[in-house]
């Protein structure tokens, strides 16, 4: 933990799309490949790093994840795993949507993976009509097109409405 104390002295400021500023320890920010690259190439000399695509609510979540993972030593893998599974558990779909985009933009691989897993788990074992409702996806198939897609792989829709 000695190294993280040393790093704690270095902080940087991130600014969300809606104008809130977050003061973050450098070793936490390094969980993001995007920020890491910016720091490496010394783009961080600016006082504030703007993240124009990420709102404050989402950025707070993302930084919470980064903080946990940056502070945990490798011996605490089990603890991290349970943190990960709790992290997205009761998240609403809107928040998850923003989170997955933010993780993609900031290049946080671990977060991106658990978010994608969560989305895939939500889709599994559900009829595609219900998936549309959950994700608020508009059905852009014509009835004929949809019937054709189903007919082509009829067995996969067996037991589904």
């Amino acid at each position, binding site marked *: 933990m000695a190294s993280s104390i040393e790093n704690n002295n270095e902080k940087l400021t991130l600014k969300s799309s809606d104008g809130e500023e977050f*003061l973050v320890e450098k070793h936490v920010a390094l969980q993001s490949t995007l920020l890491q690259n910016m720091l490496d190439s010394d783009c961080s000399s600016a006082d504030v790093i703007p993240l124009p695509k990420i709102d404050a609510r989402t950025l707070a979540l993302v930084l*919470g994840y980064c903080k946990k993972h940056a502070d945990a030593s490798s011996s605490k893998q089990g603890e991290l795993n349970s943190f990960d599974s709790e992290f997205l558990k009761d998240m609403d779909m809107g928040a998850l949507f923003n989170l997955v985009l933010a993780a993609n933009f900031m290049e946080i691989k671990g977060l991106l993976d658990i978010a994608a897993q969560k989305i895939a788990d939500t889709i599994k074992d559900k009829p595609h009509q219900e998936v549309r409702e959950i994700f608020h996806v508009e059905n852009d198939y014509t009835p004929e097109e949809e019937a054709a897609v189903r007919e082509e792989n009829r067995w996969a829709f*067996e037991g589904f409405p």
Partner: protein
Amino acid sequence: MDTLFELKIKKSARSSSSSSSPPTDWASLPEELLELILHHINQLSEYLRFAAVCKPWLLAANHQRDHRQREIHKQVVPMLLIHSPDQKTEAKEAWDYRRRLYSVTENKIHSRLELRVPYRRRCCGSSHGWLATVNEEDLGITLLNPFSGRTLSLPKVNRTISIPPRDILQNMNMTLKRLFCHVGIPLRMNLWLFQFIVCAVLWPTSNQAAANIGLT
């Protein structure tokens, strides 16, 4: 959870409890993210239902379908073709047996789906959803996709050659090379100019093999 970070400037007017978050458009999720989600889907049936949600999702699924389905095919235990119970005696034609699918992994019979699989031809292999069937009389090989019903008959350029049994058992590559040579395709020809389907039927008991080669 302890304080994670300090807020230097607070915009106190709007606490970020916006439960009515801005509208989300999952259909327009960047394709790279849709592909990432698809990577976490392991059942082929789920994959196909994913594609039925909307067109952008279908596109994402199609774009990586080839290599992804190959991966899934590698992971997934193939389904078994089983008899439809009511068809055993009353099939109108002997070859017109209907089959059902049994998924070993899901322990489930796809009972409402019947596939027609010709009975008079021997099935000598399957790959990527296609069955290779062989007519024992003229050695003609027909590829059959039981889902789409499509068939693809390979031209009858078959040759029968004798192969030492140990070749068949010990070195399948060698056997195929021999078949190539016997059918007259030089191995060093510019094979990549054409796409070939090669099917070989081996009879280990009689040390005989037949190859069918078709241009696709």
